[in-house]
């Protein structure tokens, strides 16, 4: 299978060399596409000098719009799988193979890398873990998807999921909602255990005050999921 690794990056010039090193060490044969989400630093130049394909968004769209650009690229260039891989060093490339494996075997359309299935690694604070459990419960309630780590941005999408996400991908903390969008139209969601690291440079994009917004936004989004068949071409979008 042809795999595209999509690396959304906003001002990650300092972290990208580490990401490249990580990918190289994993021995993956996948193509890499860095989506420069309107960075003000040298993200695009650094990505190009590392030999990655680069998508330069002219304005900052946020993680949803950036990841969707990667899915569009994957769709147009006929990739069988697209893996979201953060540009901040949190994700571990040695799990790429495990993440794509259920797609390769045709057992799933979306595969989430979960911190909570296996042991060890960085698992975030207790408060966030409680929030994640709540989201996981809510997702199961709304669309039957059983996912232990719905906020994980380390995930792989097969052809059907690539086509869906290229057309409709949520914005603004899109991870849990994207699972719901997929499960709603019958995509099969699977999970594999992964370990994550704490980011090497810079702060997490989710500060204490934004957490309230995160949960209000995602909860409302899950409550108001569009009915299957009534979805417009792109959800706000």
């Amino acid at each position, binding site marked *: 299978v042809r795999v595209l690794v999509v690396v959304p990056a906003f001002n990650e010039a300092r972290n990208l060399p580490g990401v490249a090193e990580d990918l190289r060490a994993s021995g993956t044969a996948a193509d890499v596409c860095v989506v420069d989400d309107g960075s003000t630093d040298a993200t695009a130049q650094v990505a190009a000098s590392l030999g990655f394909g680069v*998508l330069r968004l002219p304005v900052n769209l946020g993680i949803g719009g950036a990841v969707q650009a990667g899915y569009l690229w994957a769709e147009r260039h006929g990739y069988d799988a697209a893996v979201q891989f953060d540009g901040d060093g949190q994700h571990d490339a040695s799990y790429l193979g495990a993440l794509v494996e259920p797609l390769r075997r045709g057992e799933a359309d979306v595969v989430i890398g979960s911190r909570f299935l296996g042991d060890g690694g960085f698992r975030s604070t207790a408060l966030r873990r409680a929030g994640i459990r709540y989201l996981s419960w809510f997702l199961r309630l709304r669309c039957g998807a059983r996912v232990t780590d719905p906020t994980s941005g380390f995930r792989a999408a097969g052809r059907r999921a690539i086509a869906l996400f290229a057309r409709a991908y949520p914005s603004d903390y899109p991870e849990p909602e994207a699972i719901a969008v997929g499960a709603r139209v019958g995509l099969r969601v699977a999970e594999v255990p992964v370990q994550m690291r704490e980011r090497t440079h810079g702060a997490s994009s989710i500060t204490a005050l934004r957490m309230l917004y995160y949960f209000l936004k995602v909860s409302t989004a899950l409550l108001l999921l569009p009915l299957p068949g009534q979805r417009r071409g792109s959800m*706000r979008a």
Partner: protein
Amino acid sequence: MFHPEILPIEVQLPSLAIQLLFLGWVLRLVRRQSLPLRDSLLWIASTVGALLVTAFPRLLVAGANLVGVRVPSNAVFGLGLLYVALNVLSVTIAASSNAARVRRLSQECALLRAEIEALRAGRQGGPTAAGQP
């Protein structure tokens, strides 16, 4: 037209004048093509509605009685809020549909830029494998 017991004339006339000025301003914006007619229709329709109620206050009393509002001035406040809420909602809808378009255009722009750079570099379009500069 004039019913001082409902709407004092010294209130009615300035209100009419202000609403007419506002309507004239919106129409002028449309004629100068600063505001597409499509986006101004709601403003024009709702302002004409407000003008009618101000010019013929008995309409307001009749309307208030119809929906069971005892004090017509409360109906005015209610209608005013509705007027603003409707117009703000229509602006919000327009803004988010624009945001969706900007998103898709930016992505298209990024994809095209990548294609151009690939063509310029004289290779087949597409990202290169990890670690192969």
